[in-house]
């Protein structure tokens, strides 16, 4: 036989509907108290989303550029001056097993101008370099216009401009003449921007032989570029100093440009941490707002509580009603915040040309956090509602 006095459980649908009933009739207050939560969650989602999108963009860029490029440059000598790489550095590095290709540049102390009228002291900010023929292939620099140097053009006054250098000189197509080291040189090509080797962007590159014969170049490479087998990059990096300068391996600086790019991105994370903290504060304030709304809601709805008790609600069912109301209220804010955070991420990513990416864990975490906040904020008001004696609740006006 069924126990005639067993309290029926509310069906889940009914429990949610009862919890939501208090929200439906007070839309403005619901909106405002959910807004606090939404702002906090949106800030946190946006911070995570933007940094993830930025990292994704970097990863894709690095994937395209390759992370197996190493640069070898002279470092500080014992005596404090700048040391030189020997002339054979490039060849020696090329002999290291996992090195697949090499290229080199050597600083040439010349100035580059659009024409011969520019007074000498005015520098153009463009560096003159002698370049080995294998350079673009090794560093992955694409040719935007014209062609790269070859055996023939490399021996004559011809120059290839980096992307920034060409823009600075106002050169948009090959065939133009520039005033380089006191003589006219013909531009044979213009490079695409080279993200891994930004120093090439602002350089004017001439043939090695021409630089030695006509521009007083000493023949020492200032940077040797080496592509190595991806898997062997760390080992190659460690052993490259010896072949580069057998006499003074400790005066050689070996670096991996892709690391520098990644590190630059990581520098932005301090700001991200600050914004994340602000988001957490907004969330906390939002939680206090929800708690406040719930306390007021319980006070205002004493007679409703009394009626529900008269209709047969248990204390637990009254408590659950307000707990669910609080959870719904903050979940509403959380959902809105997640959407707003996604929108901010997408908007920012679009302006940066990044892929927009918000990790699922951030969305789940955001919603989870709002539920915890809703539970905490609603706990005390819900207990107060449940403890209210029915007769007391009913006499409240």
């Amino acid at each position, binding site marked *: 036989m*069924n126990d*005639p*006095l*067993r*309290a*029926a*459980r*509310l*069906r889940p*649908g*009914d429990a949610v*509907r*009862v919890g939501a*009933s208090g929200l*439906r*009739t007070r839309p403005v207050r619901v909106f405002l108290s959910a807004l606090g939560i939404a702002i906090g969650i949106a800030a946190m989602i946006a911070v995570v989303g933007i940094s993830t999108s930025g990292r994704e963009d970097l990863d894709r860029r690095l994937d395209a550029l390759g992370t197996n490029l190493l640069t070898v440059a002279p470092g500080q000598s014992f005596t404090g001056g700048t040391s030189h790489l020997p002339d054979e550095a490039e060849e020696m590095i090329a002999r290291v097993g996992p090195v697949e290709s090499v290229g080199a540049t050597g600083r040439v102390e010349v100035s580059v101008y659009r024409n011969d009228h520019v007074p000498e002291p005015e520098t153009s900010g463009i560096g003159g370099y002698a370049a080995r023929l294998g350079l673009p292939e090794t560093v992955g620099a694409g040719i935007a216009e014209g062609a790269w140097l070859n055996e023939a053009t490399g021996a004559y006054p011809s120059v290839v401009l980096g992307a920034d250098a060409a823009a600075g000189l106002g050169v948009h197509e090959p065939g133009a003449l520039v005033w380089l080291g006191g003589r006219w040189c013909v531009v044979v090509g213009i490079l695409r921007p080279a993200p891994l080797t930004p120093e090439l962007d602002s350089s004017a590159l001439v043939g090695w032989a021409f630089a030695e014969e006509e521009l007083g170049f000493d023949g020492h490479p200032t940077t040797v570029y080496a592509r190595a087998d991806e898997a062997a990059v760390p080992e190659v990096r460690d052993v490259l100093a010896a072949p580069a300068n057998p006499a003074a391996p400790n005066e050689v600086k070996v670096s991996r440009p892709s690391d520098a790019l990644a590190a630059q991105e990581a520098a932005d994370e301090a700001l991200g941490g600050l914004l994340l903290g602000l988001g957490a504060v907004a969330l906390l304030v939002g939680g206090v707002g929800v708690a406040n709304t719930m306390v007021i809601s319980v006070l205002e709805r004493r*007679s*409703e509580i*009394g*009626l*529900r*008790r*008269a*209709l*047969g*609600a*248990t*204390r*637990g*069912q009254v408590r659950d009603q307000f707990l669910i109301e609080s959870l719904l209220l903050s979940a509403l804010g959380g959902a809105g915040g997640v959407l707003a955070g996604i929108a901010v991420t997408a908007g920012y990513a679009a302006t940066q040309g990044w892929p927009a990416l918000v990790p699922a864990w951030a969305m789940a975490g955001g919603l989870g956090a709002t539920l915890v906040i809703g539970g905490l904020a609603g706990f005390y008001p819900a207990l107060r509602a449940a403890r209210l*004696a*029915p*007769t007391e609740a*009913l006499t409240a*006006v």
Partner: protein
Amino acid sequence: MSGTVPPVVELRGVGREYGGVTALRDATLTIGRGELVAVVGPSGSGKSTLLNLMGTLDRPTSGVVRIDGHDVGGLSDRRLAALRARTIGFVFQQFHLAAGVPVLDSVADGLLYGGTPRARRRALAEEALRRVGLGHRLRHRPHELSGGEKQRCAIARAVLGDPSGASGPGGPRLLLADEPTGALDSASGRTVMGLLRDLHAAGTTVVVITHDQDIAASLPRQVRLRDGRIADDSAGGGAR
């Protein structure tokens, strides 16, 4: 009344104190199934206190309250709630209809805590609203209704019976009305009283608090309170 069927309401020496104030003292009263009882008395005489005790909204500080045979003092909150959900319906002077909610839904809430599925609740609510003459106002909100119409909704909610429910077809329904006509003009009051009489005729046990002497006199039984005591009971049983 047969010995096997317990009275709907049975009070034995019931008292209720609030701090130092004695709202009700030594009340002994039995109300059988299907009775229609008026509770009268001056303001502050303990009428609402008595009704709340019958409705298990309150517990006595002394004496025994039995509803449908269950000793209220020995029941947990959950079991009391179940008793209210299945057996007892309330009508108050203030109608307690949720603002902005269609009355159909408010009335359907009468069975919410009995575990009846929503579709069935709404079907029964529609039927109940038709019975109280508001079949054409189902979707209306409280502010669109007159006081009398609102009170009819409240009555519909209180008697929303579920014949297939746990209380069974013959299960006792106890309707407790605390000044249901107090906020109404006399014409609306008459309609509401007419409804209570109809319910009584259909077998529901009805207890009505009223200040209206004529209404009280027209009901089969009157219980008169004075200073927290039952001063007079027209059925003779509980008077001292």
